[in-house]
Structures are given as C-alpha cells and as structure tokens.
C-alpha cells in the first residue's frame, strides 16, 4: 500500500468570513463536495432535507449548518469545524458566521487560522462587513488573506467588475494597515467555478483555483525557524515518584516558538534562574532537537524550582515582556459589560493571575474603524485597546511576534465564563 502520501501530509487551518448572503456555506459545501470529502449518506441526508424545505437544487449550505436552530432560521450560530483532505494536505476549516453580533465568533475562528477566506458578493463589492472581517483578520495576525469574489455568474464573469473590486479591496486593506499576503479569485460557489475546478467562463483569469491555492500556500511560518526566539511555556511537571525513576523531574510543554537543542542554555521566566537542557523527550524517546509546535518534555542539568506557568527562553534573550502592566487589543465576548477595576482572571496559554482593566484607552468603532475615547465600558463584540494590570508578574511576547505567547483571555471569576480575548500590543 502507498501509505507514504497519507503519512506525509501537512496541515493547513483556515477560516471563512462573509456577510449573511455571500454564499459562505455554499462555498464550503462546494469544497467538500468537489474534493469528494462528502459521503453518500451525508449527501442523501442533505438531499432529503433540501426537498423537505422545498428547495429545487441540493442546498450545499445544509451540509454545514448543524444545529436545529440554525436549520430552522437558516443561519450559522457558532464556530463549526470542518475537515477535508486532498492527496497533498489536510485542512481544518473554522466556519464562522458573518452577522455583526457574532464578531466574537470570527475572532475565535481566526485565532488559530493560517489563512482567511473573505467572501465578497460580486454584485455588492466591498461593503462594511468586508472591512470588518478584514480588520479582524489583521487584528488576529492571519498571514494570508484570500479574497473570493463570489457570484461571478451574476455579473457575467466580468473582468472589469473583478478588477474594480480588487482595487477597492487593496485600497481598504492598505488603509487598515494589513500586511498579510493577498490573493484574489473570481468564483461561483454555487456552480463551482474556480473552487476546485478551473472555470471556462473566466478565460481572462489565469491564477490558481481556490483549492490549488490552499494546497500550495507555504505554511513554514508556523514551524518556528532558527530565527524565531525559542519559547517553552511549562505546562505540567512530570514526576513519576517510582522506584525506577526516583528523582525524575521533566518539564512538559508545547514549544511555542523557535527550536530547542540539547545543551542549550535556558533562562526561566519570570524567576530569571538559568540552566542547560540535558535531554528532550517525547514519551520514551529522546531527541537532539525539538521544533515548534511539538509537545515535548525537557530535563535540565540543574535542580531549580520551575512550575506550571513559567516560561523557558534562550539565556541571552531579552525580548520577552515580563511585567504586571500590559497594553492589549481586546475583543469583548460577553453580555456582561466590561467594568473598570473589577477583578478578572487573566489567563495566558499556561499561566494565570488575578488582574483588572486599569484603563480603557480607546474603543474601535467597528463601522468606521476610528478610535473612540472617553468611554468607560465595553459591550459584547466591541474591540478596544486596554491597559491591563495583573497581581503577579506574567510573561508575554508582542502578539505580532508570537501568536501563542502574545495572547490571553479574561475570565469573569463570578460566572467562570471567558469574557474577552486579548492580544499584547
């Protein structure tokens, strides 16, 4: 059997954003359907459901709308994750709804994405929601933005219309300061043009299909190269306390940046103590070098005090931010409005501290993207710049330098709910 192909694939995570009727669910349905990732029983179920709703054609959107309320209202409520694979790659789609009130869902879906697909209705061009989706993609640091200009069949596959929208989009994107790599594609999700199969109806377009683009976008950016500073947030201390391993003490974590070698001199933050890497383990196998984002455990030369929430970095690395006051960009997630100086829990990947919002620097008007100052609260789906103060020192990077060690959430200790997402500025 040829297992080499299967065992050799890479993983690309992407998110999709579009306004309510831009055909996002149809596009995802089309990707799944044309890549033959839909099974017969799923398709039959959708055919049955389409018929019972009186739809004439098979409604591909029904493939992705899972919950009863969504099917009844014809909307998508929450982030849904979809999977498909081609012989080249495995894909995870974070499918998020486009309504204004669900900004938080797009933020959630975007947080782990390597690429964002932004859908534009060719008839409507760049609209307010497009600007908002693009702003969120920039805020969450997604390295690739693929603009799919959809419903090209309804504008007769006009090259002129396509170029006009591309121009408008580039202008808007520059204005919001997005430096993501941009691609533009003329598609029809409903009929499949340029999704998986190249379109004959847009002979003027010589670029790749969406699927080809997804298969070829480089994803090396997330595999911590030699240039990215090493970051190992300590998640858990492995202590077997057994006769066979009497003094064994390993620091387990998922490498969040760069490369770690046996013999590397490391510093523990926030304490500042130093040591050297004695061994890198994955279960019972030792390795000379570990790459981001591998989950490993590390043994050190010296017996020093390290616990969950500490971070190992290169011994001479002065770039991490250690402190108790941070500027963050934040998206408010909860129906409970933000209260200045209320006790919240600040949680990074593995560390936690009590904290509070010391100041609301400005809120971003989601319609104009202009800063609004002089306010004292935030409501659900608001995006703002805050000053955060924590009771214990915490270790972060700037979000633009490292998405894993530059991010945090706020938790309301009264409800235990995750009420905000923050990015270190």
């Amino acid at each position, binding site marked *: *059997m040829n297992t080499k192909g299967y065992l050799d694939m890479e993983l690309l995570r992407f998110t999709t954003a579009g306004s309510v009727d831009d055909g996002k669910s149809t596009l995802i349905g089309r990707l799944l359907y044309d890549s033959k990732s839909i099974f017969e029983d799923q398709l039959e179920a959708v055919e049955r459901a389409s018929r019972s709703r009186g739809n004439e054609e098979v409604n591909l959107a029904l493939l992705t709308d899972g919950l009863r309320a969504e099917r009844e209202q014809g909307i998508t409520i929450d982030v849904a*994750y979809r999977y498909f*694979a081609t012989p080249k790659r495995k894909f995870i789609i974070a499918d998020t709804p486009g309504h204004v009130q669900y900004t938080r869902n797009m933020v959630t879906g975007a947080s782990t994405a390597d690429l964002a697909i932004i859908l534009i209705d060719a008839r409507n061009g760049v609209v307010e929601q497009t600007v908002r989706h693009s702003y969120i993609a920039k805020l969450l640091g997604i390295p690739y933005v693929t603009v799919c200009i959809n419903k090209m069949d309804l504008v007769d596959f006009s090259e002129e219309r396509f170029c006009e929208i591309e121009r408008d989009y580039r202008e808007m994107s520059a204005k919001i300061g997005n430096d993501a790599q941009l691609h533009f594609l003329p598609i029809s999700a409903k009929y499949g043009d340029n999704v998986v199969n190249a379109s004959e109806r847009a002979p003027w377009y010589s670029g790749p299909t969406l699927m080809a683009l997804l298969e070829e976008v480089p994803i090396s950016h997330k595999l911590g190269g030699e240039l990215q500073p090493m970051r190992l947030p300590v998640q858990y201390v492995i202590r077997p306390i057994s006769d066979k391993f009497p003094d064994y003490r390993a620091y387990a974590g998922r490498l969040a940046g760069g490369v770690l070698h046996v013999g590397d001199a490391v510093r523990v933050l926030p304490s500042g103590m130093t040591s050297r890497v004695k061994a890198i383990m994955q*279960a019972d196998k030792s390795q000379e070098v570990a790459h981001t984002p591998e989950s490993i455990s590390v043994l050190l030369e010296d017996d020093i005090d390290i616990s969950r929430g500490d971070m190992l970095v290169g011994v001479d690395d002065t770039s991490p931010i250690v402190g108790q006051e941070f500027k963050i960009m934040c998206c408010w997630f909860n129906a409970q409005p933000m209260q200045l100086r209320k006790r919240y829990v600040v949680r990074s*990947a593995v560390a936690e501290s009590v904290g509070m919002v010391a100041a609301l620097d400005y809120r971003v008007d989601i319609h104009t993207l202009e800063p609004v100052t002089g306010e004292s609260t935030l409501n659900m789906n608001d995006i703002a710049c805050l000053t955060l103060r924590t009771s214990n020192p915490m270790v972060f990077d700037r979000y633009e330098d490292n998405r*894993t060690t530059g991010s945090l959430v706020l938790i309301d200790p009264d409800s235990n709910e995750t009420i905000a997402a923050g990015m270190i500025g």
Partner: protein
Amino acid sequence: MKDFKLTHLKELEAESIYVLREVAAQFERPAILFSGGKDSIVVTYLAYKAFYPAKIPFPLLHIDTGHNFRETLEYRDALVAKLGAQLVVGSVQESIDKGRVKEEQGYNASRNRLQTTTLLDTIEEYKFDACIGGARRDEEKARAKERFFSHRDDFGQWNPKNQRPELWNIFNGRKNMGEHFRVFPISNWTEMDVWQYIYQEHIEMPSLYFTHERACFLRDGQWLAAEPCMRLKPDEQVEVRRVRCRTIGDISCTGLTLSEANTLEDIIEEIAATRITERGGRADDKRSETSMEDRKKEGYF
C-alpha cells in the same frame, strides 16, 4: 531548519497531548471515558505518551451496557493491566435493576440512550470533574461545534448556544461545584487520521476491527451481530458472514461491514475507498435529523 516539516499526524498528536496535559493541570479528578473503540484507545495511548514515565494520572471509566462484545472486555482488561491504570466500571444493568432507567422494548430496543444516566450517576459517585472522551468533530454535524473543553451544568447538560469561546490554545476549565467538563483531545482528527496514526504508531487493536467470521443478520440494510441480547424479527435469518466493525459500541447499535480487511493497511485502503461515513452504520443516529444534538444536550458522550 529549512527542511523541517511537521506532518499533520505529528501536529495533531502534539495538540492532543497538549490538551491532555491541560486536563491534568486544571482538574482534580479527571477520567478517560473508555469504550474499547479505536478513538478511546488512541486517547489512552496519547495519555500514556503525555505523562511518560509517570503513569496516566487518571482512571479509565467504562460504561458497560451489559451488551458488550466479549473481545471488547478482554481488550480493556489487558490494556488496563499493561498500563497499570485504574479501571472504574459503571453498569447500565445496575441502573436498570435500581430502577434509575427503564429498558426499551421492541426489536430495536437499545441500551445506548440508557448509558447517559449510568454515566452521570458514575460521574457523581466518583466526583469526576473532567471526563475525557474520544469524540471527533468530523463524526457528526452537532459535534462539529463542540469545544475541546466542553462545559456541563449541574445536570450534566450541554448548552450549544452558550459555549465558552475557545481561542488559540487557551482552555478555560473553571467551574462551580457540581459542574463538570467533557474534554475531547482528538476533536480535530478524522477517522482516516485515527487509522493512519494507529498504523504509524503500531498500536495494538481489538480483533473486532479486522475481518472475522460471525453469525449476523440483516436489518434495514445493515448487518448486526446475532448475539443473545438481540431479538430477531420472524423474517430475519442468521447467516455466517466475514465481517468487521468500523466503530465499536454496544452490540445493539454496532453495524458490521462485510469486509476482508485483515491488516491496518487493508483498513486504511478500505476507508479511503468507502463513500459512507462511519456513523452511517449507527442505528442510534438515524432516529432523527438532530438525534445526536438531542442526546448530547442530555449529557451523552
């Protein structure tokens, strides 16, 4: 390192191990929900890797419907012995005997739904605060919206409209007394990923997954095992066929696939060629368009 490339299986493994370590760090009394199926076997294997050389810091919890395949129980006991793990069994038969649940009647009677009560009772008895399951988001449309850390209220119920947002790799496991979490470390794996991983890591699997001769009968186009707990309709004939299980659960809802697949390579090839989802053979999902969503809200796996 320019030529370093992380395969999708390594990346999924790293993510799952990260989630398992978060569970150990954030909860007091977690347990692995062990069904004897491939997904819970992979989760248990990942837990072994996550904490080596320490033992897995939580017990395996098996909800036994009393209608399990003999091979499942043998595999379970051998694995527990090998890992030196603790095993907790919740018995559906006991829940029936105590009058906590009522046995379904009729030909399609199944103890599948009754498991929910036994599970919630066992969680309460042992005060488990996080139950780690092998559910995957690709299995079923309601599961596509499930979180890694899925909060359950005092009644063990899932509220899909009010889930905690999950960003980056930050998991919020805070809860009040009496509440618990379901945690799904292999959320992002597909059926194919699971089999490829089993193949890559040489994980030993129950014999039920490979072709074998078995007395079966055909009901509504689906082969089922002719075991004593199954009541046959007058027109149903028992035949010996060469079959294998694509998923393993309670006998009453585990469909058998006619198959000659005898090795992991055969299984991977068979799955690559098949055009029916693995839950296509699950009688429990066919009851209505949203049957999984309804069961999950009540506290099902």
